[in-house]
Every structure is written in structure tokens, then in C-alpha cells.
């Protein structure tokens, strides 16, 4: 690991201003992904800004009837919150399907959103990777890519986003609240938060330099039945091959988002309208234009069958 200086800050605006002032700096919260990447020198910050002491560790009701989740709320506390379990069960389920208890005890809401891909070539510094070294090439295309993207990818990158939590937040139309280095704030709809890889896979979201996430807001509860079905190579503590997040209403309408298939949580406007028509109709819209590789074509079938199974369970009532 490269040497770095370290600073604790006490307000979000101070954190953003410090980051803008200090080239080479990174925010650190739980550190469960950043420290790992720093050990491998994939991330080489020269300065760390500790954002654990900003008072952003609460879950509060909003005027609109939803919830505001502080950026530093731990994954375990978010999954265990009685309001989340009752009204946003898909989010609780998604969190509990991710990582291990030890990691959920340390990882934060904002950190989870900002975690990097687990593409093995991103991690292997001996291999070209456009995400790690822009312009160096993509080793996953034509390489070991069984667990890579099937939709929305590019010639530059076929990595997937690893978060389960973000898939549920995408389904729930969450908003990402931030503060910029000049102290101004904004809310980015999660649908506009992540980017497709295109020619710039190293730029994964639309945050500007120094901009700090302060909270994630959830709109009013949707009601209905909530599902997060994650399919993986072992029963626990593994990343998704595919995952299906869904809210199904008693009349069969609802919404659906996918994990493990793209560079970001995957939701397609218009696909939800086909919910009552069954899994085939939804998947046709969701995965329109999908270009799987020879090694991950199975994901297309897996998405279809997983959604089929979710819809069948929803029907059982």
C-alpha cells in the first residue's frame, strides 16, 4: 500500500471542500472495498478523508412520506431497520443477500453504492483493463467472462456492478443526495447516477470531483409483495450471477430490476408495463439488445427463469 496522509472532518461541506482542495484524495467510510483496492495498489490515494463522523448515520422520515437514509448508515443497520423491513422489504432482502455479516457490520450505504467491479481483470494488475488503466484494453472480452455483463456493455468494458443494495434502490426510484465542494446540494435520481461503460468505463457515476454523498432518499412505500431473488454459485457469500428485484401488486402489475447483468443496476422504462403479461414479455423488453458472450449466454435463460419463479411465488399469495 502507498503511504497517505489522513484527516477526519466533521461536516459534509468540509469533507467536499477538503477533497476538492487535495488532489489525489479519497473519502473513506467503511473501507471494506477501498482498503482492499489500496493493498493491491489499484487505488493509490495520497490523502484519505474520513467521513465517518459527519452525523450521517440516521434513518429519518421525509415530508413526502418516504425515508432518508444517511450515507454512513451501516448495511446491517439499514437491513435491520423495522421501517425498511416492513415497507421496503426488497431493500432489506437485497442487503442481506450481499457480502458477509462482518462486512455488513462495516460497509456503509454510500460506500456500497460506490463499490467497484469485481471483474478479475480489474483486480489483476498484470492484465490490461480499461477501467483500471484507460486505453489499455479489455482482457475480459475473449477471456474468462462467465460472470460478466450481457446488456449495456461496450467494446471497452463488459464488467458488472456488484452491489445488491443498489439494485433494490434502483427498483424503488431512490434519490442520491450530495454536497458539492462549493457547499451546494443536489439530489440525483438513481436512474441517472450510474453510467454505462461506453468509451470511459473508468468513470462509473455522475458525481463531480469532490462531491460527497450525504443520503439516499426513498419515496413513499409501494405496498405489494417484495422479492429479491439472487442466483449465485454457492448458497451464501458470493456475488450474483443474476438477481431479480421485484415488487408485485395484487393485480399482477409491478416493477422489476436486475443485478449481475450490466455495468449498473438494470431497469428498463416500459418493461414494468409488461408485468401482467408474464416473465417472457418482461424479459423481452428488459434484455432487448442483449449481447452475451459464449460463456455467459446462460444468464439470459437464468434471468427469464428467475423472474418466472418470482412471479409464480407472487401469484401464490
Amino acid at each position, binding site marked *: 500500500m502507498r503511504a497517505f496522509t489522513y484527516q477526519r472532518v466533521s461536516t459534509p461541506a468540509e469533507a467536499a471542500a477538503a477533497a476538492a482542495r487535495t488532489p489525489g484524495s479519497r473519502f473513506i467510510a467503511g473501507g471494506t472495498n477501498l482498503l482492499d483496492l489500496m493493498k493491491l495498489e489499484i487505488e493509490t490515494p495520497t490523502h484519505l478523508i474520513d467521513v465517518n463522523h459527519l452525523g450521517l448515520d440516521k434513518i429519518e422520515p421525509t415530508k413526502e412520506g418516504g425515508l432518508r437514509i444517511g450515507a454512513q448508515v451501516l448495511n446491517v443497520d439499514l437491513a435491520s431497520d423495522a421501517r425498511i423491513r416492513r415497507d421496503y422489504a426488497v431493500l432489506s432482502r437485497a442487503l*442481506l443477500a450481499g457480502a458477509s455479516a462482518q462486512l455488513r457490520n462495516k460497509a456503509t450505504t454510500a460506500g456500497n453504492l460506490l463499490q467497484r467491479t469485481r471483474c478479475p481483470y480489474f483486480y489483476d494488475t498484470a492484465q490490461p483493463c480499461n477501467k483500471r488503466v484507460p486505453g489499455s484494453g479489455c482482457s475480459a472480452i475473449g477471456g474468462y467472462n462467465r460472470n460478466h455483463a450481457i446488456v449495456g456493455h461496450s467494446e471497452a468494458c463488459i464488467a458488472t456492478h456488484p452491489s445488491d443494495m443498489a439494485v433494490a434502490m434502483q427498483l424503488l426510484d431512490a434519490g442520491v443526495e450530495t454536497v458539492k465542494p462549493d457547499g451546494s446540494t443536489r439530489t440525483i435520481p438513481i436512474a441517472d447516477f450510474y453510467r454505462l461503460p461506453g468509451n470511459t468505463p473508468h468513470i462509473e457515476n455522475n458525481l463531480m470531483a469532490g462531491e460527497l454523498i450525504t443520503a439516499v432518499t426513498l419515496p413513499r412505500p409501494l405496498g405489494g409483495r417484495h422479492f429479491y431473488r439472487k442466483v449465485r454459485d454457492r448458497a451464501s457469500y458470493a456475488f450474483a450471477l443474476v438477481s431479480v428485484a421485484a415488487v408485485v401488486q395484487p393485480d399482477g402489475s409491478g416493477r422489476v430490476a436486475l443485478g449481475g447483468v450490466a455495468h449498473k443496476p438494470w431497469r428498463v422504462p416500459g418493461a414494468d408495463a409488461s408485468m401482467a403479461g408474464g416473465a417472457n414479455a418482461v424479459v423481452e423488453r428488459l434484455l432487448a439488445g442483449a449481447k452475451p458472450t459464449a460463456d455467459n449466454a446462460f444468464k439470459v435463460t437464468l434471468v427469464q427463469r428467475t423472474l418466472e419463479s418470482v412471479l409464480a411465488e407472487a401469484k401464490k399469495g
Partner: protein
Amino acid sequence: MDDPIETNIARRNVLKTGALAATATAVPLSAMAQAPNAGTATATTPAVPASAPVTSKVKLRVNGKQHELTVDTRTSLLDVLRENLHLTGTKKGCDQGQCGACTVILDGRRINSCLSLAIMHDGSEVTTIEGLGQPGKLHPMQAAFVKHDGYQCGYCTPGQICSAVSVLDEIRKGVPSHVTADLNQKPLLSIDEIRERMSGNICRCGAYSNIVDAITEVAGGKA
């Protein structure tokens, strides 16, 4: 009898070699492990001249004893425990959050100490395996692991036991898990719950069924 210090050093060297071997064996599995680094992490960048080390002060209360240390900012909580405080019960397995051998209880919650910077935990309270119990005065979970033979080589055991103690605490507090059927009810103690909640602790010897027996006994045998 051998000089105790010599023996101790020799044992630690053996364990270091063991840890490296275990990491190497685990690489093919890591591609599907959901952990901070689940890639092929064997290649590291060649040494690049780093800027001068930076140090910082940190106060930690470990197993009830207060410590004030000056450490390199890069030092993990795991390395502070082992190298600075010589509490070598906590083990370094993968050093990347995949195996759970480094599990300790930080401010009442189990974490991977390898993925924590010591300087970020100024004022925190840490409990390691040494703080749970000592020979002659074992924690009930330590005694149950002995009774049920919940290990073979023993390298993962301190992490398994710290985790197991936390599992029962988390169930008592109502923290749900992936296998909890009804999110609006308090989770029940069951073998499925124990297995799911212990999934962050890998045992390459495969002592899992005996580990579950040990935890079940401490929990009151209701599983």
C-alpha cells in the same frame, strides 16, 4: 523442555507458511466469493517507490486494556493487534476480507480486522479471542469448540469463535439474515440461520458440522 520463546517463534513461522499455502489453494474459489476482492488477486504491482511513511497516534482499548500507539497510517487493525500488541490469537488468512480468520469484535460488532485501518478506530473497544477467555477460564463458546472438535488445524478457529459469539448476540438483538423467513418477526435460532450467519468464516479443514454443533450447544440446544 524447549525454550518457550524459541518454540513460539518456530510455531509462528510454520503458521505464516501455512497461511500462504492456504491462500494459494483458495484462488480458484475466489472468483465466486463475495468479498471485497473476489478476483485473481495474486498479481501485485511491482514495488514502486512510495512517498515517506506517515504516522499517526491512536488510542485503543483492547480486551479491557488501554493502549496508546503511534502507527503508520497504513496499518490495519489486524496488524496492530498482532505486530504491535502481540495478540497473535487473531489470524491473518487472506488479508482481503474473504476468509474471516481475522474476525474480532469492534465496539460490540464483529468485523474483518484486516479491512480496517487502526487509525480510524481511535477510542474504540476491541475484543479478540484472548479477551473472550483464557486457558483455565474459557468462554463457553471456546469450551464448546473444544468439546465438539470444531476445528482441525485451528487456524480459522479464533475468527470462527469471535464470529459465533456475535451470531448469538445478533440473533438475540433481532438482526435478520438472508434465510430469515419473515422479516417482521424476530429471527429464530436454527441450523440454517447459524450456517448462513457463519458464511463469512471459511474453514478449509471442513469442520463446519462440528462448529454448528458447538454453537447450537451454547445457544441452548434449541437448533
